[in-house]
């Protein structure tokens, strides 16, 4: 049986498994006994690129089939500063799983900076290593750079985040329609967005300090981003119409 290495983002951990990505996603989100449920977001990691970073002997000893011959579900390899440790080049596809176990694969794509819209406001849900929800006037690449380049007192070694749809609020924070937005406290969101347009220069504003643990997949905007400084990897998220064709089960369960 093959071994797979996964980097889970919520919470951050490096896990070895004998399950292929789709089965691993189902296992993570629903367990083996269906006594729990919850979303999972994880990357598949290229093992060859991290062999020198992990204890391969331990991995080979622990990640073996169970006595009944069934594949080993999970072997935790590391749970702290994992994202920081893994090189970006080792990251393969990103997988996101619904809380009832349907998994969608998102492929990494070179990021085209020329397509960024710099005249609208953004809402980012940071996922790893920290997880606030932040409103920003910066486009994804600038947002990533600002938080990872050391130009401000708050610095992250790498950042994994997702852009969320703001609808009309992206261009009209005070009066834009909020019909398709899921946020309970919209007045607060409007205030945060409006603050970005204030007289003094403010590039980002925290909307929510801690991630609720559940990402509403219908509200994802352009997609997921991971990187550091100018090094950015993009995982585009399909439109709902495309999603219906790509992965019908996933589409139906979100």
């Amino acid at each position, binding site marked *: 049986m093959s071994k797979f290495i996964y980097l889970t983002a919520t919470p951050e951990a490096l896990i070895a498994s004998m399950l292929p990505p789709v089965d691993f996603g189902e296992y993570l989100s*629903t367990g083996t006994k*269906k006594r729990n449920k919850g979303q999972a977001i994880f990357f598949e990691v290229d093992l060859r690129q991290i062999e020198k970073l992990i204890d391969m002997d331990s991995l080979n000893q622990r990640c073996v089939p169970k006595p009944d011959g069934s594949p080993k579900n999970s072997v935790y390899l590391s749970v702290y500063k994992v994202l920081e440790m893994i090189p970006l080049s080792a990251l393969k596809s990103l997988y996101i799983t619904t809380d*009832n*176990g349907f998994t969608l694969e998102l492929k990494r794509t070179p990021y085209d900076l020329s397509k960024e819209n710099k005249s609208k406001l953004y809402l980012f849900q940071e996922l790893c290593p920290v997880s606030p929800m932040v409103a920003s006037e910066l486009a994804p690449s600038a947002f990533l750079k600002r938080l990872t380049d050391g130009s401000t007192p708050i610095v992250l070694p790498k950042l994994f985040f997702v852009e969320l749809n703001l609808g009309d609020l992206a261009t009209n924070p005070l009066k834009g329609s909020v*019909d398709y937005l*899921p946020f309970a406290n919209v007045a607060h969101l409007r205030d945060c967005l409006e603050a970005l347009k204030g007289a003094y220069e403010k590039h980002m504003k925290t909307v929510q300090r801690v991630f609720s643990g559940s990402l509403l*997949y219908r*509200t994802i905007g352009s997609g997921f981003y991971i990187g550091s400084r100018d090094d950015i990897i993009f995982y585009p998220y399909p439109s709902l119409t495309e999603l219906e064709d790509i992965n019908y*089960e996933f589409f139906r369960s979100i």
Partner: protein
Amino acid sequence: MVSLPGATPFEVIAIWSVLVIAFFGLAYAMFLRRQVMACDKGTEKMQEVWDGIRIGANAYLKRQLKTIIPLIFIFTIILFLSVYVVPPTEESKLRFAGYSDESLKLVIGFGRAVAFIMGSLFSLMVGQFGMRMAVQANVRVASASRRSFGEALKLAYRAGTVTGMLTDGLGLLGGTIIFIIFGVASPDTLLGFGFGGTLLALFMRVGGGIYTKAADVGADLVGKVEAGLPEDDERNAAVIADLVGDNVGDCAGMAADIFESYEVTIVSTLILGVVLFTQTHQLSWIIFPLLVRGIGVLSSIIGTYLVKGQKEAKDNNALKAINKGFYSSAAISITAFGILAYFYLGEWRSFLSVVVGILLAIVLDEITKHFTDGNYRPVKDIAKNSKTGAATLLLKGMSYGFEVAVWQTLVIAITIFASIMIYNGQPIVYVLYGVAMTGIGMLTLTGNNVAMDAFGPIADNANGIGELSHLDKDARKIMDSLDATGNTTKAITKGVAIGSAVIAAVALFGSFITDVSKVQIQMGFEKSAQLIETGIRISVPMVFIGLLIGGTIPWLFSSLTINAVTRAAAEIVEEVRRQFRIPGVIERTVKPDYQKAVDICTVSAQRELVPLALIAVLSPLLIGSLLGVEALGGFLAGVILSGQLLAVFMAGAGGAWDNAKKTIEDGLYGGKGSEAHHAAVVGDTVGDPLKDTAGPALNPMIKVINLVSLLAAPVIIAYQKPGQSSVGMLITGAICLVIIIGSITFSKRGGFKKVPFEM
């Protein structure tokens, strides 16, 4: 023809033609059935899933028969003997002139008993055959969806039309046969026919409603909410019960419900038509409604056959195809009614009443759509309130539920006013006949309506089979599209069912007044004491008490049915949890015991039938025997008003909460998993037993009470003269009271055993 003195040759041909049309409708149903049965049942896996549904459905139907047949037997005897308590009417003596009193009693008693059996069996057949057809069709629709959208749509709709044409054909057949045999004496036996159909519809509605929602709520609470399983997951032990429940509630229950409205409107129209015939000696009062029904059957056949889909599923094209069939039938009907009125009646009043009925169906449909469809403001408003939690969502839904009840009741009031205007200056019996004709008009397109309704569970089950047998994406998309259309058509027919139930009840109420007066005349009551002269005076304290008690009955009924659903759903929850703990069930290595959940739902549903039926049957006897016949009239008015308001409220609020949830699931406010969605799920769960159990059960309940009152009124008049108390009546009242209290206790506890309260 002996039973139709004075009939013109055209009228004789017409009445026989109606009979032929009834058989033609049934033959069309058989033709469609053969078409459906000739289609393939798909893969082995699909048939394995389907087999579970089929076995569950059969178990339910078998057990239902076991519960119902003894009751049919008991009521048949009671109806046969009833003729010995109250003598046959003058019309019966006229029809069977030359018969001795004893022979006449025997003929009428026998006729009434046979009519009751016929009504019961027809209702049972519509429900049972319709449900079996739906079960046979669902796997075939799932299989057809692998090929094309058009084929799947046509198949699902034609399978639904089998039930629709059974409803049409049997409803028309029963009334026509009775009329051909009994002629002017038919009111004496038609009541038995109506009562049989209504009582069975009550059983099917109550049983179906409890079954479907116990399974649905139970399966969702554990499967989706607790364990995070998707809809229709094979590891959920209640998944088959849930699929069976869709057939039991939306197919068998609804078909029997509409059948009895169809039946009861023709019964009340013929009763009133006979009264007018005796006054005017024109048979057209009786022949015209039968011809209208016949034309309705023919136009339904044409309209339903026109429903065909394109190869690909596109937005709403299933609904467009179904609507095309519906409006074609409506256009054909109205044109034919106009021609018939012009050449046969030579006047337009009856025609106008029928057209008002068709318009009423359309207006009620639009009101229902406005308040329960996701494209209109009320549902959007309710969904918006989900952002502030379940409490505000529930309050908003209740607010709109109350409002829809107001508008629908006002429309019905306007309809009755239209009858007053159409028969302006004529005695009250003409107005009541006009109302009854409105009911006839409203149910003209019963074949289409029932087809649309039965289409819902067929598409829903096909989708479930597709999910459980892991059909490919393209087939699933087709079934999703059909399922969504089925949800809309079910909601539309629910509105028609409630509206027609009220119109039928008002028509029966009219028959009550004329029938009571006839008996009073027969018994020599002074004119000033006859009900048709006095009216029902709510200023009389006894009548007002009757009105108040009548108003409480729908609430009592709803309380007991919702209680039964809650109790049964809790049992299902425990059972599914238990099965999840069995090693291998979650891992998919061990198949859950689906039959256990099916059994729980079946037993729970049947347990409630007898006590609830007893409450419906005995409460008018209690009021009539203790408070008198006028108070019984007040009681009926209370039941109709309160029942109508409550039924529409429950259907409206429940439907709106359901669609608010669907709107959110389509992406509003974050879609599935959002806080808004959690609130909407609460609303939908609360609304489910309201719109699918308690609300629909009120339709047949109102009519059972009306028909029992009609049957019992002569006895009450005979044995309880104004100003005198009768010991017999007091004893009857006391017995009814004891049985009703016993039934309530039984229903609340789920048995006579006292259950200790546990925290």
